[in-house]
């Protein structure tokens, strides 16, 4: 790039000059700590030099302009018979009338298009309503915008800002009033008054807290967190209430089971998963060998991460996969965590088979099911 050619001579100099800080700004130039307001009230002087007279001369409706406001780019009021303006007016009118079409269409479709699910239903019902509503709203909206852009007189105005901070005298006066009034209350001198006020008024804040505690039901909190509806001898049933018999679930099968107690299928913590594998595929510790029956094993379905149901079972890998945050458990190895944010195995329910061949629980889960909580010891 060459310095030589730069259009008319002198421009290069003047550009550099433009960038120089002007004299008289020594203490303010360069990086510095600019505390305090840099705008003084005088900066906001609304000079009366810019009076209505000047505007009236320039623009005809200057008398209507607010004090302290001037016109930067005047706008011209468009004459009524201007051809372009007439065309614009027709466009705007067309849009406004389109809105009418939209409303009429909306009402017609609302009433006439079939809307009886199961018998006579048109999937175009909602889209048609949307089409005509949009037509109506866009008609008005686009019409208004086009009107403003093409027909209204739009001038670029300059308006002065007001100072943000108050005058120092005013500030001082306000502070003085506050201080004097505060003195009048007697608080600064009367420590007994002050301290008892703080105590009394402050304690009011505590008043609503016991009321809010009514929102909770805490009597059986520990019980609720640590136990489920499973008990010794309770049968495993499906959501329709039918008990599960040994042999009904095929190898590689999985069944959602609930305890056979009243409202057993509604208790969120009791839902469990019965999985059947080949017995040789199961790897369990010695003390849990009798918790499963012939390759049938039951885990809690409530994810130990955040409680979503872990229902996704991969038959070949024996992975249990939670759809919420992808925690993965190995169902053949006591639901050990393989991947994901869960930190604990899924609890296992010890099961056996009753005399009729139906699955029963040997008792409740040996640990709290579901996500961790502060009071959980392990």
């Amino acid at each position, binding site marked *: 790039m060459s310095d030589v050619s730069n259009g008319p001579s002198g421009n290069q100099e003047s550009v550099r000059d433009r960038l120089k800080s*002007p*004299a008289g700004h020594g203490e303010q130039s360069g990086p510095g700590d600019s505390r305090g307001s840099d705008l003084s009230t*005088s900066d906001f002087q609304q000079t009366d030099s810019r009076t209505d007279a000047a505007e009236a001369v320039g623009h005809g409706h200057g008398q209507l302009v607010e004090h302290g406001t001037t016109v930067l780019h005047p706008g011209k009021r468009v004459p009524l018979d201007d051809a372009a303006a007439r065309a614009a007016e027709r466009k705007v009118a067309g849009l406004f009338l389109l809105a009418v079409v939209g409303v009429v269409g909306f009402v017609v479709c609302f009433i006439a298009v079939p809307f009886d*699910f199961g018998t006579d239903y048109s999937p175009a019902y909602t889209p*048609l309503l949307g089409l005509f509503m949009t037509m109506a709203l866009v008609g008005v909206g686009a019409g*208004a915008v086009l009107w403003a852009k093409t027909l209204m007189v739009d001038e670029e105005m300059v308006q002065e800002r007001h100072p943000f901070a108050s005058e120092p005298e005013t500030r001082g006066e306000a502070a003085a009033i506050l201080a004097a009034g505060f003195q009048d209350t007697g608080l600064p001198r009367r420590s007994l008054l002050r301290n008892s006020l703080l105590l009394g008024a402050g304690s009011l804040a505590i008043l609503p807290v016991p009321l809010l505690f009514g929102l909770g039901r805490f009597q059986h909190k520990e019980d609720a967190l640590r136990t489920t509806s499973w008990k010794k001898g309770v049968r495993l049933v499906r959501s329709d209430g039918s008990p599960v018999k040994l042999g009904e679930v095929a190898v590689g099968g999985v069944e959602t089971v609930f305890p056979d107690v009243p409202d057993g299928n509604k208790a969120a913590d009791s839902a469990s998963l019965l999985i059947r594998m080949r017995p040789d595929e199961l790897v369990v510790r010695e003390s849990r060998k009798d918790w499963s029956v012939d390759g049938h094993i039951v885990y809690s379905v409530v994810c130990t991460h955040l409680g979503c149901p872990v229902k996704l079972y991969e038959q070949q890998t024996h992975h249990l996969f939670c759809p919420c945050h992808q925690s993965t458990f190995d169902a053949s190895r006591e639901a050990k965590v393989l991947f994901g944010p869960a930190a604990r195995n899924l609890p296992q329910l010890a099961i056996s088979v009753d005399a009729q061949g139906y699955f029963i629980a040997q008792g409740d889960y040996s640990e709290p099911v579901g996500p961790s909580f502060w009071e959980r*010891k392990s």
Partner: protein
Amino acid sequence: MSLATKGAEGTATWVDDRLASSGFVKRSLNKVFPDHWSFMLGEIALYSFVILLLTGTYLTLFYDGSSREVIYNGSYVPLRGIPMSSAYESTLRISFDVRGGLIMRQIHHWAALLFLAAIVVHLMRVFFTGAFRKPRELNWLIGVGLLVLGILEGFAGYSLPDDLLSGTGLRIAYSIALSIPVIGSWAAFLVFGGEFPGHAIIERLYPIHILLVPGVIIGLITFHMGLIWYQKHTQFAGPGRTETNVVGSRLYPAYAAKAGGFFFLVFGVMTALGGFAQINPIWLYGPYDPSKVSAGSQPDWYVGFLDGSTRLMPNWELRTLGHTFSFNVLFPTVILPGILFTALALYPFLEAKFTKDRAYHNLLDRPRDRPVRTGIGAAAISFYILLMIAGGNDIIATIFHLSINEITYTLRTGVLLVPPLVFVFARRACLSLQRADDDLLHHGIESGTIRRLPSGEFVEETVALPEQYAVLLTSLDTPARRALAAGGGHGDSDLATVRPREVQARPRGFFRPKGVQPSGAQHGSTVPELEGAQLENTVD
């Protein structure tokens, strides 16, 4: 027409007799608003909130916020005979038994998504242009408050139908509460009225969603707009624009017509989406059942970053001294958003502290002129987007047949590596753009005409920058410009030696030699050196 005018006059007189309103009317209708398209992003949020109020009120006429169990017997055949809560049943009724109910439900939900999307985009505009600086820090805080309230309001809203997808989200919320140390189980049982699911959460979310939170939001929006009205909007630097004025259109009639028209256009986009794009098809999800779940369960987009952080978190949990400290839950859902939103709220004060800048700012920055701030913002956005992508890792795996495990591992590294890289690149990009501006200032525009000098050298002629652009560029005070002014050179070495710091000296409007009248500075250019120059936008 005269009848209308007489009527208007009569009304105005009646009101003015009682309120002395004419002064207010005069000031308000003449108020000048700067117009730049990016200043309308906040309006999108405002208008979508109005649409939410309108459609939401309609929905309250039909919705039943009750967890009482009923057996469905409505029009939607595939759910007939299924037990469900009354809340879910009433939402089905709105969708299939009330004419126009489905489109109103869909407009309401789309408007909620737009409300938050507009807030986020508006926040980014305010951030990158530095509009949060003094005296507007309070408005920034209100804005962050509106963002947080909006997220909570949306979560409450989409949980009201009590469907399988949102119910899964409530289960997760309950478990997050449980994990809080010391008070967790108390908090969870308090909010849900006992053990999950209980029979209280829908009944409580309903008044929170239709009364409490909207009330606070309306109050905050009023305060937010009041501050803009009172302090006047910021504006970009340019011809005639100074720190002490506002250049733009008067409110009445053009600006009001455009703003009003924009409201109807936003509404029109919402009705188009509401009619043509299905959203939250609760009849397909089914009623909430704690033992059922769908693959690919996600929250609405504005909670997605939390879902992503939760999915990426390694399973670190501490069990000691008889208690469990679930860091794997607490960090991504409580600690991380706490840090992010606190940093967001405090940013104006942090930046002022680090740049030692306590001046008033009514002129906006171009992002390139603040490389570090732009870099920080870009890095934050990249972090946020990566978390949102992580929240959809199973959808990505499903559609593209990728391994969800590999996606998770990649994103775990990504969220740590990518934001710093983005910071570096964005900052360098800003510096390059500044350099390009400086070249333009120094050399003018390349004209395309090649001239041969007598010495034999070929040079390209350049044309000086038109005055209004020169004013625009010179009105911005950046370290590179100061270096240019001081040294005069423009080679790379000059700029390379300048270590850019985010220090803002006085805004240009105050570079004023002693003795120059204030009125002089309020004409045209902000730079007094140019006062003598012929500028096409001066009044005289």
